[in-house]
């Protein structure tokens, strides 16, 4: 893990100084080429405070409204201070592991990003972000499932995978997405006796075409393929050390699937614990601990994949942001816009994208929240079209971009 100190010492030559600098950064990305590209979506459930993740220290309105949870402006050589990105924004100090990726231009930020729908319900907002249809509850499938569905069919059960106990809304739909808690445990465990596995397999092969049977069939296809690919035995490479938290475990296993060449196109992982109504903390504290795990997991993933990262884009998202002003309990309540990260091959990184709406009272949404200036669908559509080579229209039905593209991907 690289520290803020190392980075500062290396200065503009961080790329050279950072021994583990992946070669993908030097490659030309062929974004339109569909084969082998992987999109990894990371959902920060609970509404991450974008103003702490990527702090607008240059905005005169920032410090005053957050007397106890605001971050100090970046200070030269201060390892516990936020890390300046461009003179206006700074990265939370606990996200220091991401700094080399920023200076290598593999990491970009989109700020003031969010939904056109104004709900402050976690659950509705998450649904809208995952179905890709804000304000429309009847949508049955997820935007990532539709993205996979528009690509040419492939004979692998591993086109779309979520690591976790349940299949997220974003991957629901008729594409046969797989979800699993652990690659290692993804099998029928009956010791030397193979009849049990065969028996279960036949039970789900027969019969009506419903959710259970369909899932069962896909499951056994996946079990066989995973076993022959030996994915669960692939160790992290390039000295990558994943934090031992669920997101670290999820990304470690997604990297195994990428390296095992099982035909992965879209992967999904989530991280909980962002709903910081109380005692959010500043440079240190509750939220800082979440950022530490979040940043370390993403950085380890990039390091682990090394060259292969040129085919991978990681997109982070959260259902909304939090109130600009801190509340009475040194925390923040449900807000509107937040910040999202884009990391990987073909990303025009080292830049904060999006129009900054400002933090003065009259600039806030409903007088309390960061206004949305980039519709999340504009960002998601651009990432999907340019990285996966899919058309945007079926992914986000009814969405008409009103702004020029961000050009966040080459």
């Amino acid at each position, binding site marked *: 893990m690289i520290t803020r100190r190392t980075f500062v010492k290396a200065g503009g030559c961080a790329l050279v100084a950072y021994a583990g600098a992946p070669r993908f950064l030097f490659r030309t990305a062929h974004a339109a080429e569909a084969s082998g590209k992987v999109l990894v979506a990371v959902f920060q459930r609970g509404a991450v405070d974008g103003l702490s993740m990527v702090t607008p220290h240059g905005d005169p309105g920032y410090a005053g409204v957050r007397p106890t949870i605001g971050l100090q402006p970046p200070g030269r050589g201060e390892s516990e201070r936020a890390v300046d990105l461009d003179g206006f924004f700074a990265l939370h100090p606990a996200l220091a592991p991401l700094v080399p990726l920023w200076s290598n231009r593999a990491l970009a930020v989109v700020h003031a990003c969010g939904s056109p729908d104004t709900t402050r319900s976690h659950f509705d907002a998450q649904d809208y972000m995952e179905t890709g249809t804000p304000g429309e509850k009847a949508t049955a499938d997820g935007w990532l499932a539709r993205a996979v569905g528009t690509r040419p069919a492939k004979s692998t059960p591993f086109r779309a995978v979520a690591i976790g106990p349940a299949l997220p809304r974003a991957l629901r739909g008729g594409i046969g997405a797989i979800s699993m808690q652990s690659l290692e445990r993804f099998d029928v465990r009956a010791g030397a006796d193979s009849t049990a596995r065969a028996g279960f397999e036949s039970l789900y092969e027969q019969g009506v075409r419903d959710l259970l049977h369909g899932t069962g069939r896909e499951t056994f296809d996946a079990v066989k393929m995973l076993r022959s690919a030996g994915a669960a035995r692939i160790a992290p490479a390039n000295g990558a050390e994943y934090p031992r938290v669920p997101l670290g475990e999820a990304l470690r296993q997604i990297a195994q699937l990428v390296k095992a060449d099982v035909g992965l196109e879209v992967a999904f992982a989530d991280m909980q614990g962002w709903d910081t109504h109380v005692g959010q903390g500043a440079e240190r504290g509750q939220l800082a601990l979440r950022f530490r795990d979040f940043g370390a997991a993403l950085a380890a993933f990039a390091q682990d994949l090394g060259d292969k990262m040129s085919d991978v884009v990681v997109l982070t998202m959260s259902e909304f942001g939090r109130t600009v002003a801190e509340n*009475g309990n040194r925390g923040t309540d449900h807000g509107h816009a937040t910040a999202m990260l884009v990391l990987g091959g073909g990303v025009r990184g080292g830049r904060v994208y999006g129009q900054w709406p400002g933090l003065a009272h009259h600039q806030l949404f409903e007088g309390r929240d960061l206004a949305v200036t980039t519709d999340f669908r504009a960002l998601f559509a651009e990432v999907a079209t340019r990285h996966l080579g899919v058309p945007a229209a079926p992914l986000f039905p009814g969405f008409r971009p009103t702004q020029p593209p961000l050009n966040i991907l080459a």
Partner: protein
Amino acid sequence: MISQVVAGAALALGLLNGCSASTSPAAPAVALAPAPRVTGDRQIVHVLNRLTYGPRPGDLERVRTMGVSAWIDRQLRPQTIDDSATERALAELTTLRMPIAEALREFPRPDPKLQAQVASGEMSRQEMLERYPLEKRPARIATELQAAKAVRAVTSERQLEEIMVDLWFNHFNVFAGKGDVRWYVSAYEREAIRPYAMGRFPDLVRATAHHPAMLFYLDNWLSARPDFIVPAGPNRGRRAGLNENYARELMELHTLGVDGGYTQRDVTEVARAFTGWTIDRPQTDGRFVFRPGMHDTGEKIVLGRRIPAGGGRDDGERVIEILTHHPATARFIATKLARRFVADTPPPALVTKVADTYTSTDGDIPAMLRTIFESPEFYSADAYGAKIKKPFEFVASAVRALGGTTDAQGGMALARASAEIGEPLYQAQPPTGYADRGEVWVNAGALLARMNFALGLASGRYPHVSVEIPALVAGAEPSAPAAVLNRLLTAIVADQAGPETRAVLAAQLGEPQITRMSPDDRGPANTDVAKLAALVIGSPEFQRR
């Protein structure tokens, strides 16, 4: 979901309007013509699948003898059912009966000095374990509660009440891992959920609103009028203020529902009304207290209704009155109950009937349940087997189907199994609790975990959980494996296996490893019967209720 072979074509046709319409766990029980009714033994099996954690051997006959409606009546009055055997099984779980103050004393917080010494390497982990043993840590409280839940689901005669405790806990969810909820969670179920699970809905809202577990989990204990200065403690002298968390979830998740017609303004007003509802000495006593100094005394307008200034503690009570008497709440609660007992997408006509019962009985829960259990929608053929068991329902029903019993230790193992399949008990972090829709629970990893649990359970790999497989097949013609299979299917899925499942299992009998005879040549060896039983438990049919 659709198989790989047809995926391409189906996607091309189905993408824009959502393929999953054709893949939902079962057709929603909405029909224009009256659907055929489930009758006879199938009806009894249906009732047992919905009102209990699954039939045990002999339950079908017991209900047949008693009559379905008499049996339902009895379940609707749980206080009339003797459940002393369950109580005895729970006796060793002492934290179940422990008042909060005692739990706070018995299970101390980790000493920060010890933690620092471990972090700096001055103290070994082993030494830490000796100084702060696992059985003195507060995690024990949730562990015992999980074990108790599993024991009750398997053993209790008051099955419907247990189903309702589970439903209401999820409705008024608190996360056992958040801060002081660790010490409060067991008391929360005992004091705020269980006594009212078969009572009146508004009492549930009141009890949860006052309980320290909810006050802590949704942060209301810290919410104060904007100019309140904290008089004492670590935050002394600091300005506190409003926290909207509880107010919002009270309306969105507990009463009106997200489409119940409230605004951000209402959220703020409700939050103001609940200022001062807090916890007295949370780390030593953990009791509800109203602190007038924290309360915003001004007038509030909630859903257009005026709550005059100066109401004090009663402001919150007034809000609960307004919310629990709102038609959106009647409909929201009716939908939730109909979803649990009838179908993931409940028939709108039934929801309306149940909502009417809510309104006419002031939210009487047995009355609403009776409306459901007497409705044609409940007995329609479309509803039969339409629900997919939640992981915990699957685990409990498997043990029950195999005539199993468990003690408190076994309950802990069953709780771990439920977690493995995707439902760690009392560990739902978001205030929604766990979902009651099949699509959430059916996925590749979870399905394998169900099969592995079936194998482990049938082969006796869960210590302290005993199953009685030989009893299930007793009397079957010993030399005829097919007769053994018939017995198993009758016992475990009430003979409701589809022809494909029956054919597959019959084919298994042709496997040399399955038809191996026991040493005395008196029929299939017990291990093989166990494997057949595991296949039935892991079959698609048994995932449904």
